[in-house]
């Protein structure tokens, strides 16, 4: 069942086109990896899906009862967060904010939801700790818990393993795969083609300006683009 359809999408900054005429469909339960070189427009595409950026032309159509509030987001860490005094619980709860509207405080259900998601991602024991003092892997889990508080249907992940050590990277991929098995659609930007092919069900490979490949992982490995990029790192 299609959840998100991108039709003839063209994206750019100040008249410069970054991505042109991109079309693809994300189905419920898919695990889509967006790969491509630096500057190919992966992040721009993600910002467009999140409505942080208006496309130059084309459109992104949600279906299957999807509302903008159903899309969760795991952004890359910002400079501000490096010295931000915030407890883990405060960060996770802030994911519930899109349900609050004008209500100034979180209600009991939202607080419970934050606790459940911390439990689910194994960060509940850290609830009272300071976010900035934790390891990169722990911080990513906390932000993932926050994203789950915000939305339960689609998760957009922007290079979730950037800067993590190998152990934390492996844990993070396992966790994302588990969430996907639980029925959450995953859209992930990644530099790590080897891991993308290992975990994803679908691959979107963006080249300079246009899509080099859109389709299932199996087809990707057989395609020209897949052979060049996944090459050594693909199925062993």
């Amino acid at each position: 069942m299609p959840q998100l359809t991108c039709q003839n999408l063209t994206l750019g900054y100040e008249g410069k086109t970054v991505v042109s005429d991109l079309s693809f469909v994300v189905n419920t339960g898919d695990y889509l990896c967006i790969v491509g070189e630096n500057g190919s427009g992966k992040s721009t595409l993600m910002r467009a899906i999140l409505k942080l950026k208006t496309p130059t032309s084309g459109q992104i159509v949600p279906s299957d009862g999807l509302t903008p509030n159903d899309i969760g987001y795991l952004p890359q860490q910002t400079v501000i967060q490096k010295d931000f005094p915030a407890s883990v619980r405060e960060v996770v709860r802030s994911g519930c904010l899109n349900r609050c509207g004008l209500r100034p405080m979180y209600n009991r259900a939202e607080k419970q939801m934050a606790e459940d998601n911390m439990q689910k991602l194994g960060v509940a024991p850290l609830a009272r700790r300071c976010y900035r003092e934790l390891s990169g892997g722990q911080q990513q889990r906390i932000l993932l818990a926050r994203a789950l508080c915000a939305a339960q249907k689609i998760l957009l992940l922007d290079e979730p393993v950037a800067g993590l050590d190998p152990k934390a990277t492996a844990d993070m991929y396992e966790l994302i795969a588990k969430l996907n098995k639980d029925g959450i659609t995953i859209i992930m930007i990644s530099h790590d083609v080897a891991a993308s092919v290992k975990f994803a069900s679908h691959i979107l490979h963006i080249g300079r300006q246009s899509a080099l490949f859109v389709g299932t992982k199996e087809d990707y490995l057989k395609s020209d683009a897949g052979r060049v990029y996944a090459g050594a790192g693909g199925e062993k």
Partner: protein
Amino acid sequence: MTEIADKFVLYFQYPFVQYALIVGVLIALCSSLLGVTLVLKRFSFIGDGLSHVAFGAMAIAAAMNLTNNFLLVLPVTIICAILLLRTGQNAKIKGDAAIAMISVGTLAIGYLIMNVFSKSSNLAGDVCTTLFGSTSILTLTMTEVWLCVILSVLVIGVFLLFYHKIFAVTFDEDFSTATGVKAKVYNLILAVVIAVVIVLAMNLVGALLISALVIFPALSAMRVFKSFKAVTVCSLIVSVVCAALGLLISIIAGTPVGSTIVAVDIAGFFIFSMAGFITTKGLMRRG
């Protein structure tokens, strides 16, 4: 000791001392509420920039012989605050440059206008008074006190009402916007509140020292506390205590009000830095 106590009792019988204390504590409270957010948003200097805008507006108000310069200063400052905070990350002139430009520009224009139109013979004194604050907090009228009380209540109300939103938007604006929180609206509200607080604070410590009032309590609290709530509450207490203490010292010792308060704030910062250093060291030894 009893001599000082007697002096306090004597001074507190004067309404102007009572007014000064009420207004001082309220302004310290408001500025510390916003200080945490501003420092974290890398907008520490917005206080300085906006205070110069307010200075420029005050100069114009003085030249136009407006009796109540609040009416001109407040809207002008609010507009500049919105312009600064709205430009955001995609602006052609980035945040720090924009603040520097507005700050220096309005300061120069303000001084120019004062120089050309001022009827006062003591121009340097006037400028000094506007910039560094003066005894103006000791000459407050009942109306000004009430105005300050009402605005403070509004600021505190807005902060309490939007506390969680302010936290979320400060911590991660992109995430908030992406998940359907109206980050732009909250940034706008924040900009207005900041402008109001700065215009208020100019009465107490003067334009140049507002930044200190915004930054020091927040930084002090961040040395020791680890959660947003604890930091906010702590910076509020530090700010109020320092302001009250500074005011009392300045009355007793006859020192300038603004600089005395800031000196007390600096002392507070050192105490908290020490406390933070000791607690982290203790933690490291244990862990």
